[in-house]
């Protein structure tokens, strides 16, 4: 799981173009939207693309993302359970 969390952080930094951040800067339990990292709805859409491209997980509805994208740890857990690649 730790390895998945680290990889996921790297992928998030790359996908969202968080230029000055390293995986260590992201607390896997902190919230990604609102207070924590301060991501927004476009980032949620980018994360949906990331999920499909890297893990074969298709999310049809941006609202579904709200639950899954709570924190890096929650996403990693969802990936572990639902990945198809």
């Amino acid at each position: 799981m730790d390895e998945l969390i680290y990889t996921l952080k790297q992928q998030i930094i790359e996908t969202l173009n968080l230029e000055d951040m390293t995986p260590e800067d992201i607390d896997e339990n902190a919230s990604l939207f609102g207070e924590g990292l301060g991501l927004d709805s476009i980032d949620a859409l980018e994360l949906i693309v990331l999920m499909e491209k890297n893990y074969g997980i298709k999310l049809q509805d941006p609202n579904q993302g709200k639950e899954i994208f709570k924190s890096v740890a929650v996403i990693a857990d969802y990936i572990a359970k639902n990945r198809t690649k």
Partner: protein
Amino acid sequence: MTMEPILITGMGVVSAIGLGKAQTLEALLAGRSGVGPLKYLKTEHKEFPVGEVKLTDAEMCERLGISLDAVTTRTALMGMLALEEALNEAKLTQEMLPQVGFISGTTVGGMDMSEQYYLDYLHNEAHKEYIAVHDCGSCSEMTANRFGKFGFSTTLSTACSSAANAIILGANMIRCGEADIVVVGGSECITKFHLNGFNSLMILDPQPCRPFDATRHGLNLGEGAAYLVLESAESAAKRGVKAQALLSGYGNACDAFHQTASSPEGEGAYRAMKEALELAGLQPTDIDYINAHGTGTPNNDASESQAMKRLYGENVPPISSTKPFTGHTTSASGSIEAVFCILTLQNGFLPVNLNWTQAMEDGIMPLTQPTKKDLNHVLCNAFGFGGNDSSLLISKTRDCETQDKEQKTCITNPIYVVSAKQISIQQPLSEEWMDQPIEYNVPFTRSIDPSFKDYVSPIEARRMGKILKRAMATSKEALKAAQMETVDAIITGTGYGCVENTEYFLDALSNEGEQLLKPTYFMQSTHNTISSLVAMQTKNHGYNVTYSHKGISFDSALQDAWWQFQLGKLGTAMVGGHDEMTETFYHILKKGGIMGQDEELCGETAVSIVLASARRCEERSHPEYLCKLTAFRLLHQPTMDVIKEAVKELLHSSGKTLTDVDYILTGISGNHHNDQAYHEETKTLFGKTPLLRYKHLFGESFTASGMGFYVAAQCLKVGRIPDQLFVDVKQITGKQPRCILIYNRSDGKNVSLTLLEA
């Protein structure tokens, strides 16, 4: 301030519900939608219903009598169909067009061809003739030139409010007395590019769209074109043409909230509608019907509902969205729906909001039954990405007084050029080039960028291409130098817009197919991203538009500002010219013969200029400024005689003669053909007045004329001309510049004249 209504003496329309007004009216009355399964666009996304115009490109060519081999685009073809109907109805013939303006709105431009031939552009010589029609301005010119030579032409590109803003510019042009007749509107075809773009934003509904419904799930894309003929009352009376309806007010405001979402309280929409009412001198209760923007996305309809409730409380007038009829015709929606509004005024009915069944929470209740009603005033909303929100107020024809009264308020006042900042291939945000210019011996180079950390936070920067960061930096520095927090209007020109992101998206589309495209690339590919981001970052809800018409994009922005200053509408404005270029696009444009010919140096330019009226300039604690802008004219494909006359008028209007002009600043760039024209024309027009140039230092770009403006303004400020700017070293006299005329000839045919004085 209220306005005299402007007559609408002709209109033409093409959309999914029909070709021409008659078919359109019939479909609206019958409640017959044109949205259905995808048929004409070649795409994998068959799951989305769309509102296509029911003709292939070849069928449109046939109807128009255009050769099937002609280089054209679907946007231009639909535009021609609509324009033909409008010109016919207003009885405008080819001979009259040099006195008539043509202002069109589009965002997609020739993307339908670029997305088909992109790999050819990259790898071989095939289809290279289509490179020249990629941009928005080319589509307007193709559309217009089919019918003759219009006296003025430009292109608005503010995403889905483009056509509405074209109507607003045309109205301002008439109110300033610059033209009696202006044809305004927009055209946009569906492309894979934006179908996939909207899909990446997850705002397309796989079902027919249901605006203002509780179950709404997104929009259906549509396409089409519509043009209106705006005309002054005297002109219509003189020509003996009847008004179909009146344009009695309009408003443009920026939501300044988010690139792709509207604010929860609908700030931009509210301000745009309120402004339209104020300009018309009407109360909200005078409005009989509102044609809502109503796209069917959860966000738009919630936000627009709030804006209406703020304006009306619980007593909103009858409202419907006609998007379920046509799909969202994006850039053309403002003029297509304006035609619908005119049809409702003329025929006394309210179009139904198709597909609506359940009230949404906190939403407005749209019309569900076709209703007969005598109408006097209707509002037509068109909102765009970036919060470029506009509203038009259209009224039933009544007797109009002539417009003498208002024209007298339009007087030529000097506008103060308060500050100007640049990022280019010279030292960024600095005037160092005046003493130590960098000389290049490469054909293309990208700008020297400053550190952007002082202007945008990392979290904001993650979604900004170079062009956006440069716009932020130059705008913020220009405001700081102007000692202003904000301005009344942000008006931007960009010839090719966010090239970097367009390229990423085209690359992905061409190489990886129509799956998993990045929304970040798409949302930055619309031209108005620049202007609206500046508004967002400076919290500016004022007038906000973007021009995209090749080499006159900056000049068009300046023309808009000039007219609004003359109308007394603006006290301050930020006018920008921004273009970026990538290696890939440079090679494509070189192949297409558009840039980089002969010894031309190509660069990237970002210029932000703060302008102010005399009063606003003087009321600051340190009323410093660079120079005064005393006259400006933008001419569309003028003959030498037209230019001569314009120069005469320009000088006369500011109390000057040719001998008062110390220097002529030209756009001589190393392109032999253009340079020869510059030499010949300036010799005829200005005799031996010393010629200056700047493009050999800053490079050619679509908005390089903005850099020319900046260069002239700095020279006037410091009171000297750097030797490097002289075309002929024999003309270096050390004479202090007091008056510089900028002579800009772009795309080999359009000319702008700018008079700057110390």
